[in-house]
């Protein structure tokens, strides 16, 4: 076969193919209604078959289609859910600022309420203790509240809201449920000044342990700033240990006997010739005084000391 013939054959085949394609497109256009009718009948047959089973309609095509689609559906739902939650978060940021402000106000309000409730609770406890003290005390009590502290750093006194008009007198002991607080050093009709037991100028007669059984008698005075008391003149032979309680003896002419002073926190042991040095933590909460009670206690009158020499007196009397 010559080259010319080959080319002719090739061109003829190309034309045939082109015509075939054209014919196919044309045929498709012409046959589209038939395709349509066929497909519609197919669908109708499927529907009729499907409609016959009223119970389950669990067709194989559904089972397979849903099995194949489920991983993609899950992924899409997951991604969509994440996207939606992201946009919801963005949307919620707009309201978050206002909500945050409201919550802050609410928290502040609740904190105030909680603080007030705590204060009320503490106050209730304190008043209950004062009531107990009043019931147990054998002396008349004048309840009082601390209304001021000495404004300077140099004095350890407080001002109470009861004065001479209420029966408060000089040197009357002031107590609270934990123990002695101090004594009245000045009065006005409506107020009184109280020198605290921690003041280095205050003093009280005290004993370590039970009165009548203890031989550790001495004098308690304040140490000033550190809030502790010091007990002096306790015999070095007396047995004193940390944790022992200290009570008033009533020999100082100010405090009645048996009132709690505090507990021993440190003992510097003495000897037969030197006394113990004992540090005591006050039983009363001196640093947070609010309610107090003034004891209407008058110490028994002491006989006036004999000032003259015995021989002279005797001689004069005779």
């Amino acid at each position, binding site marked *: 076969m010559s080259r010319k013939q080959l080319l002719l054959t090739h061109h003829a085949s190309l034309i045939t193919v082109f015509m075939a394609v054209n014919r196919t497109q044309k045929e498709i256009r012409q046959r589209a209604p038939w395709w*349509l009718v066929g497909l519609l009948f197919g669908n109708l047959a499927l*529907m009729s078959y499907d409609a016959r089973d009223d119970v389950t309609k669990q067709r194989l*095509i559904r089972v397979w289609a849903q099995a194949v689609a489920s991983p993609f559906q899950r992924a899409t739902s997951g991604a969509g859910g994440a996207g939606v939650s992201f946009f919801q978060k963005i949307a919620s940021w707009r309201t978050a600022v206002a909500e945050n402000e409201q919550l802050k106000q609410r928290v502040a309000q609740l904190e105030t309420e909680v603080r007030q409730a705590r204060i009320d609770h503490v106050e209730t406890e304190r008043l209950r203790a004062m009531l107990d003290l009043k019931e147990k005390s054998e002396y008349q009590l004048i309840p009082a509240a601390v209304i001021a502290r000495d404004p300077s750093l140099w004095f350890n006194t407080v001002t109470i809201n009861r004065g001479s008009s209420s029966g408060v007198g000089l040197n009357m002991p002031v107590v609270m449920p934990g123990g002695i607080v101090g004594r009245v050093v000045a009065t006005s009709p409506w107020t009184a000044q109280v020198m605290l037991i921690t003041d280095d100028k205050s003093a009280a007669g005290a004993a370590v342990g039970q009165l009548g059984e203890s031989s550790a008698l001495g004098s308690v005075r304040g140490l000033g700033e550190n809030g502790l008391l010091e007990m002096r003149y306790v015999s070095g032979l007396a047995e004193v240990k940390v944790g022992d309680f200290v009570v008033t003896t009533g020999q100082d002419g100010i405090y009645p006997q048996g009132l709690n002073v505090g507990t021993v926190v440190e003992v510097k042991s003495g000897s037969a010739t030197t006394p113990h040095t004992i540090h005591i933590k006050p039983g009363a909460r001196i640093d947070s005084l609010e309610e107090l009670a003034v004891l209407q206690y008058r110490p028994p009158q002491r006989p006036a000391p004999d000032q003259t020499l015995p021989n002279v007196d005797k001689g004069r009397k005779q």
Partner: protein
Amino acid sequence: MRQLKIALVLSLALILQSSLGVIWRPLTYIDLPLIVVVYFALQRDALQALIIGVAAGLAADALGGPKSLLGAAGFSKTLTAYLIVSLATRVNIDNPLARIPVLAGAALFDDTVYVLLHRMLNQPLDYRFIDRAPLKLISTTIVGTLILYALDLFFSERARQRRQLAFRRRVARRSPLKLRRRK
């Protein structure tokens, strides 16, 4: 390659149609497979439109619950596709604005046929036609208009040419010869 693209787009539409309702219920009003069917029916290829229509419909039926009739959506979407092809070969509806009534009509027609088929075969529907059809019509028309525009960017020959021209223009703008001329 084109057939693969079509299959992917159709699959995506079907998966999204069944999944988006889980995220937000009103998204079920948008009939994504119908939008895809309408788009390919507008290409005036009758056989392709019919095949896409029947595939989309049958797949939608298969992914649906047991209450829906198998083949009902296949029937309605095939018929819708054919009608749009017939319309597109007689009237020029390539204009994006002209597609809006086509989408709306397709949504209404598809729903009507679907509901009628169920009524004919005595299959009860959970919702009334009047409650659902208007919402589907509005949602599908609005979202469909946007999706048809997006599909145009990926499938149409004119869009491909536009992309090529834009690329050439960009290259021409950056040409060093032009820079020299400015100097």
